[in-house]
């Protein structure tokens, strides 16, 4: 492989993808953009060049068919790799490109390295995080990479080629409403207090908020709290199908520690667990644990950290 291509609609993530691609020591890493504004946002992403393919920038994922067609010409000469940021848009786009190219795909990778014989070896989580899958894909291939997993590259990048993608107008965007996020942005929080089903009433979440106020933490929760009891918003639910976070400190309160939840928090630097059941799996995933009633332990921990 001489050339690796990266795409993310999030410029910060695109630079991280360039960082990963450079680790493969390929001849060139090229960043793809779908309009001039996106090209401009990539001007310091560290890529060896930007390819601006004018397409649908309202729904970048709808460029899948024509991007696959463009890449198939490039991959016919040099079977390469497309690395895409694992966002909602990126996952949609990337797997559709893999479908049109009929090539291998590995999503939300943990690690990736070039294997001999023009192939790429990746690892990724399965079974709610209980299992790590290692697989090797022959090139060309498509992979997606979550934000924050690799260090960003930097350095000036300029447009080296321009093209036009045939528009796919089958889906029409009729409106957009920004999601207003309340409280601390959990994806960037240094500390998070996680609320589990051990809380017996909605108003008791105040106990978690008291601790959060003392340690400057955000409030997260399990799927049950968000989707069954609707006590906190779905934006606060941490886990495999929710938000994946990596704070310095995660305090898991009143939760058993199901694998799906742990998959979303296991990159935390330090994990503290409070649960009255000493057999709860959360203690195996914790650095520090307190076996006890959260209604006693949580206020005590808040007081001790004041």
């Amino acid at each position, binding site marked *: 492989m001489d050339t690796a291509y990266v795409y993310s609609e999030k410029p910060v993530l695109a630079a991280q993808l360039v960082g990963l691609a450079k680790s493969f020591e390929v001849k060139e890493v090229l960043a793809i953009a779908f309009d001039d504004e996106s090209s401009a946002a990539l001007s310091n992403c560290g890529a060896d060049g930007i390819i601006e393919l004018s397409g649908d920038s309202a729904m970048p994922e709808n460029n899948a068919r024509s991007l696959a067609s463009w890449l198939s010409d490039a991959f016919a000469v040099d079977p390469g790799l497309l690395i895409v940021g694992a966002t909602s848009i990126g996952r949609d786009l990337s797997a559709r490109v893999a479908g049109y190219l009929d090539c291998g795909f590995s999503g939300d990778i943990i690690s990736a390295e070039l294997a001999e014989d023009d192939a790429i070896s990746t690892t990724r989580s399965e079974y709610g995080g209980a299992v790590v899958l290692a697989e090797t894909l022959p090139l060309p291939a498509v992979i997606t990479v979550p934000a924050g997993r690799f260090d960003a590259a930097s350095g000036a990048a300029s447009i080296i080629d321009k093209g036009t993608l045939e528009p796919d107008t089958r889906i029409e965007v009729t409106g957009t409403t920004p999601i207003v996020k309340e409280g601390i942005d959990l994806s960037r929080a240094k*500390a998070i207090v996680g609320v589990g089903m051990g809380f017996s009433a909605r108003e008791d979440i105040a106990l978690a908020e008291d601790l959060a106020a003392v340690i400057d933490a955000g409030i997260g929760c399990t799927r049950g709290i968000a989707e069954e009891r609707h006590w906190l918003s779905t934006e606060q639910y941490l886990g495999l199908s929710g938000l994946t976070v990596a704070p310095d400190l995660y305090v898991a309160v009143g939760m058993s520690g199901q694998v799906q939840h742990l998959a979303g928090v296991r990159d935390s630097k330090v994990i503290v667990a409070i649960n009255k059941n000493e057999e709860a799996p959360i203690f195996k995933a914790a650095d520090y644990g307190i076996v006890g009633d959260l209604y006693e332990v949580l206020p005590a921990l808040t007081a001790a950290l004041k």
Partner: protein
Amino acid sequence: MSDTAMQRYVVCYKWVLDEADIRVLDDLKVDMTRAKGKVSDFDRSAIEAAMRAAEAQGAGESQDKALEVHALTFGDAEVTRSLKDALSRGPAEGWTIAGEAAKTADGRVSAQALAAGIKAIPNVSCVFAAEGASDTYARQIPSRIAAILDWPLISSVLTLKIEGDELIATRKLEDCLQNVRVTLPAVVSVLPEDYEPRTPGLKAVMAAGRKPTHELGSAELGFDPNDVASPMLSPKRLNVSQIGYAAARKNIIHKGLSADEAAQSVASALRKEGVV
């Protein structure tokens, strides 16, 4: 209304091993021998979404069957056991693609099989799927099916409604809600948030056993699901291995201390770690 004029929504589901039953042994080998099968959690929400979309148009209420939801799955010989569970959640008929190829399938193979199944079912106007399955959670199948069929894909769907041949959906992206409109046929992948699956009652479970089921083979698909050498069923990956995930944690657990004593100890440790 004749069978060929009836419109069908197909919902794809996967029969997976329950991750809660998986044990990671001390040598990090993965023991799945005790794991039981289930309809993937997220797929139950996809079935719910398909049912609600059809029911909103009167499906199931009259004898004049203009629209039905059918369930489709790909798996090994065991997969037919999933039909009763899947059909108890509402779909009128079940379709299986069962064969050895499922054992070595990657996302490419699963999508090829499912897309061939969709082509074999008459008059499919909409395909429903979850974003990903609860075992692999690779989130590639709906995208790949859309590509193979060359149908538009609406992913990350929070809510949707279908009026005639028009599908209107609200997608939930990281920082916005996006309203979109598409003319069917299309593939939609739904988020579980607003589609809490119904709990099948005894009557629904009993009825599920009597619903029509179909096993698709080479005559309908163009390939034999047992033929692992078929180009349609060859995975685009070389080596595959699984190991258990091991959490490297200190596991310093306080029990039997008073709440205050335990809290003081943990607070002191957190200060030493420099995380508070």
